[in-house]
């Protein structure tokens, strides 16, 4: 190992540091530490002359380690790292001692603060001794994208990516594109045509030269990591004669937009779905409306229609979450039924009216204007549907404790519409396993950060969009699909993925394959090599948190720039002064 020549620079930060900390004394002290070649103070280390000085010294005095005692590294670590780069020194051979935010600004006693600053500087000198030259690595980024699910989200994302000139593989399980939206006629609250929207998307997808659509197909296997996945796609048994042999495609990123499935209304026993003929689900009603023929099973035009919200949603028994779109859809139905059968009376039995989006409240108001009768029930006190007696002049009676009046009431109904909620698809677990993403208790895919990364997952290169993440309406789904596309476009634009140098790595000589680290990584960066029987970290996925480093019982994992040695020597340094 070459001789250690450390340069120590103590910043005065005007008087910000110098007022409290005796910077000269610190420089003096630093000079006494073995391995320190020089120690200087300066008024503003971060200023151009200050940086210039460091660059000069590195060249002149052949310094190979730099310690800057100044402000928080959050503020100027980048500045000084670039100074090192300019001087031709690896930027990671720098260590900062934070003697401003965590010393001069928080302590008043000069003596104590100077002592502490000394310790901080000494620790930095001790630590920097073990710093290593680190280089960031880059991996190839394949511009092709695999999209799972050909609903509105999948098609939107596909078009967005393909329009930007990238090859897209769109895998759809059914024999047609469109997903759940294909069952919808008009969209709430503006009653725009969902079918026109869908026709437009499908036509563009089918015509697009850069989109290859796999119908009747599913993803069989996904291997590799961001930028370098290979996926095999194959047809579902028995349904299509398309692809018997799996087709293997090279892709760089994956978007999962598998959507939702409707809640099975027959699970709610006291609604009698499947037993009472005129209790139907929202999708069945949608079909009737589309055919212009809203009738009871007996062929009569219903006089009283009741719409029950939150079927399967917001209940302890089934799903605790809100399905987000049903309230507006229910209002849409109320309007449609009333328009098609002006003599009809509509009761809308709800818990809370979730009319939160653009135009929603106005639509709710219009519905009131059209005399929809809104009746409120409580989450845990659901309505019960009975068959009516002939004298009741209606098909069914819905018994419910109406909360706003406090009355126990029965509502006449000839037709009952159950607003079935959304739930995760039954095959979502399979998808999650294939693409290595996680699911919450309800089966929805988990985003990597609910606020700031709503479409990314913990597996880099795998994105989620639309109703497979959580229930949402069309504009939100479209926005999410595009957001996922944006993520990928930004990545593709660079052709390579730069990986920050601060990742962790496994020493193969030490790893014995205990697999303790395998589950720890939140980013699925650790993979297990079944042949070598050793774990391996994909540096492109590693974010450098060091959880695995701390957990490796045989010290086989090294956390770059935060090695045991570095931390422990810093620790000893701190306690030595």
């Amino acid at each position, binding site marked *: 190992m070459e001789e250690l020549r450390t340069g120590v620079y103590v910043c005065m930060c*005007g008087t910000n540091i110098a007022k409290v900390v005796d910077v000269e004394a610190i420089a003096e002290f630093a000079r006494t530490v073995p391995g320190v070649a020089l120690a200087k103070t300066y008024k*503003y280390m971060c200023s151009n002359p200050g940086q210039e000085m460091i660059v000069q010294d590195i060249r002149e005095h052949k310094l190979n380690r730099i310690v800057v005692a100044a402000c928080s590294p959050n503020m100027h670590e980048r500045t000084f790292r670039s100074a090192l780069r300019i001087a031709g020194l690896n930027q990671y051979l720098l260590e900062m001692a934070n003697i401003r935010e965590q010393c001069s600004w928080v302590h008043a006693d000069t003596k104590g603060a100077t002592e502490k600053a000394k310790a901080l500087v000494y620790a930095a000198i001790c630590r920097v001794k073990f710093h290593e030259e680190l280089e960031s690595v880059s991996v190839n980024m394949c511009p092709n994208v695999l999209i799972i699910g050909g609903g509105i989200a999948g098609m939107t994302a596909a078009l967005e990516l393909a329009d930007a000139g990238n090859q897209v593989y769109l895998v759809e399980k059914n024999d047609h594109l469109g997903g759940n939206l294909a069952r919808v006629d008009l969209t709430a609250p503006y009653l725009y*045509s969902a079918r026109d929207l869908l026709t437009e998307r499908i*036509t563009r997808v089918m015509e697009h030269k850069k989109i290859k659509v796999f119908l009747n197909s599913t993803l069989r296997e996904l291997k590799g990591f961001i930028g370098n996945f290979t996926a095999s796609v194959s047809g579902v048994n028995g349904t299509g004669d398309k692809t018997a042999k799996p087709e293997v495609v090279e892709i760089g990123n994956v978007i999962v937009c598998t959507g939702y499935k409707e809640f099975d209304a027959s699970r709610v026993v006291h609604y009698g779905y499947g037993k009472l003929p005129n209790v139907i689900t929202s999708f069945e009603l949608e079909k009737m409306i589309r055919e212009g023929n809203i009738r009871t099973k007996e062929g009569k035009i219903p006089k009283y229609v009741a719409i029950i919200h939150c079927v399967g949603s917001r209940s302890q028994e089934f799903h605790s979450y*809100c399905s987000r779109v049903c309230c507006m859809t229910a209002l849409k139905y109320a309007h*449609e039924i009333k*328009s098609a059968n002006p003599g009809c009376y509509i009761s809308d039995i709800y818990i809370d009216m979730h009319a939160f989006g653009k135009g929603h409240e106005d639509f709710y108001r219009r519905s009131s204007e059209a005399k929809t009768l809104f009746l409120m029930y409580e989450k845990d006190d659901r309505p019960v549907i009975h068959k009516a007696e002939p004298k009741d002049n209606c098909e069914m009676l819905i018994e419910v404790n109406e909360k706003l009046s406090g009355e126990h009431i029965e509502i006449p109904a000839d037709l009952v519409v159950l607003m079935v909620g959304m739930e995760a698809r039954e095959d979502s677990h399979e998808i999650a396993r294939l693409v290595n993403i996680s699911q919450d208790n309800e089966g929805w895919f988990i985003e990597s950060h609910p606020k*700031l990364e709503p479409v990314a997952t913990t597996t880099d290169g795998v994105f989620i969009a639309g109703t497979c993440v959580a229930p949402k309406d069309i*504009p939100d789904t479209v926005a999410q699909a595009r957001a996922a596309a944006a993520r990928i476009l930004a990545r593709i634009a660079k052709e390579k993925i730069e990986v920050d140098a601060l990742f962790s790595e496994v020493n193969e000589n030490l790893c014995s394959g205990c697999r303790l680290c395998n589950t720890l990584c939140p980013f699925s960066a650790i993979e297990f090599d079944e042949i070598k029987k050793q774990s391996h970290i994909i540096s492109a996925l590693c974010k450098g948190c060091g959880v695995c480093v701390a957990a490796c019982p045989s010290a086989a994992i090294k956390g770059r720039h935060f090695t045991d040695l570095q931390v422990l020597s810093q620790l000893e340094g701190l306690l030595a002064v």
Partner: protein
Amino acid sequence: MRTGVFFCQGEERKGINIDSVAKYSANLPDVETVQILKTSPPPDIGYLAGQIKALSLGRVVIAGDFPGYFKPVFTRAMALAGGNTAEVRLASFKEHGARGENAMDRAKAIVACAVMGVPFPLAAVPGGNPVNHATLIIGGGIAGIQASLEIANAGKQVYLVEQSGTIGGHMAMFDKTFPTLDCAACILTPKMVSVGQHEMIRLLTKSNVISVSGKPGSYKVKIKQKARFVDVKSCVACNQCTDVCPVRVKSEFDAGISIRKAIYIPFPQAVPNAYLIDETSCTYILTGGEKCGVCAKKCPKECINLNETDKIIDVEVGTIIIATGYEFLDVSKIEQYGYGRYPNVVTSIEFERLTNASGTTGGRIVTKSKRINKKTGTEEWYFSPEGLPPRSVALIHCVGSRNKKYNPYCSRVCCMYSLKFAHLIKEKVPNVSVYEFYIDMRAFGKGYEEFAERIRQEGTFVVRGHSASVSMKNNQMVVKGEDILNDRLVEFEVDMVVLAVGLVPSPGTAELAQMLGIPRDEDGWFSELDYNGNPTDTDRGGIYVAGMCQAPKDIPDTVAQASAVAAGVLKNLTSGKGIGHMSSIPLSEIEAKAKKIQIF
């Protein structure tokens, strides 16, 4: 196919002459009948069925701003007449942006497409103008930040214009974010720092767009950057200038509940992390350089230049993203809550700052204390860190929202943030009673319902029923309301009332809309091009909307939208097809395209 075109336009709208569109549609091929129907009462089903039968129409086109409202009527009529209900087509003027100068042509094209059975957007894809690779983003809140990073990370130049002295927007002011209760600063500040340090982002704070000209793909933008008076690069945020500044004004960042100086930093993590001078209160600037000026003398790095002047910056960009966000409704005009009259009636954003760990009380939730203003000799109320914690707090939802007199729309976030407040109060103040007055608990997002349930279980009294009055009884604030679910009128003695104030578009929205030629909806928010299909595009090519400025939404939705916009921008930059205004495509071109389109 024999087609009938029926116009169902409720009220006459500026820019569209129904008669003239009707005349046009009569000349379209296969059109058998064109009728302008009254919408109130809605068209009679029997009559329509008769018409369809008599004229043996195979296809019916309903035209108007919201033809969907009448679709069920026509579908029913079609079914009664024995026709194919799938052939009831909509020609939605509003949805497809028939507005502005080109409204008539567009309306005609929309009808033409519907008559031909082609979804309008298929025929009307604008293109052409080459795209400048730089992007202008107006507004440095979370939407602007997210969009900037997304685009800049792809290696494209971004100009981020922010009118205040720091980016961060409203989110930076928040303490915790619902429903995960993670700290807003922890997740936002790293992003802000990235923006500040990104080599592809030019950050222009204290700036406003003053004019925009040019066409899609190459907009020339004039930006006025107000003098900051402090050199951003050399300022080390040492605080000495602030120490000597004699001017004390209310801090905007703290929603007015604390005091700042005329030279100040909005908040410690501000980006750029440098001081700035508020020209509206600085003595030196107000007196034209006659008085004060001590900060410039005190600054050890001599980076204060009190004679700095405003700059005009010209940039050329291909795309513009509007992310101007929102403002809070002026609650003092809603008298019955006593805001301004009773010291401890606070708005949600004031409370947000109060409960924030970096706020004036260090996150302690207290009621206001009284002090005598030494200068004016008047009594004033302020939040003191030593203040008494409230024994009970009322949270009132829907203040100004869902109300025809103020905001007829729902502000979407208030329910959840009020629940969050309830949690924070319960957590920070022992033995406190918290009352929530709500109308509908709109807990619709991922994890929201569970959060609401958790708040209930924490012992917050959730009162279904709105409160419309805050009054004073024997020196004690009382909130009256109706607890509907328990069927009683209630009157609670409270020490603090937090009003969940509704959201309105930020003040410059109207001006900006005019400058950019973007329509706004009835509530004042920017209108998107197409509610379902293109929720972030606008009528103008290359101009996008993201986040709250389009309509109220929560952080995840805002972030998703901001990213979605970035997708649009990046796609334009790499597709090589260029962009144009949707509305500027001539009618003949759309007609011609529509004829060629095959529907899958």
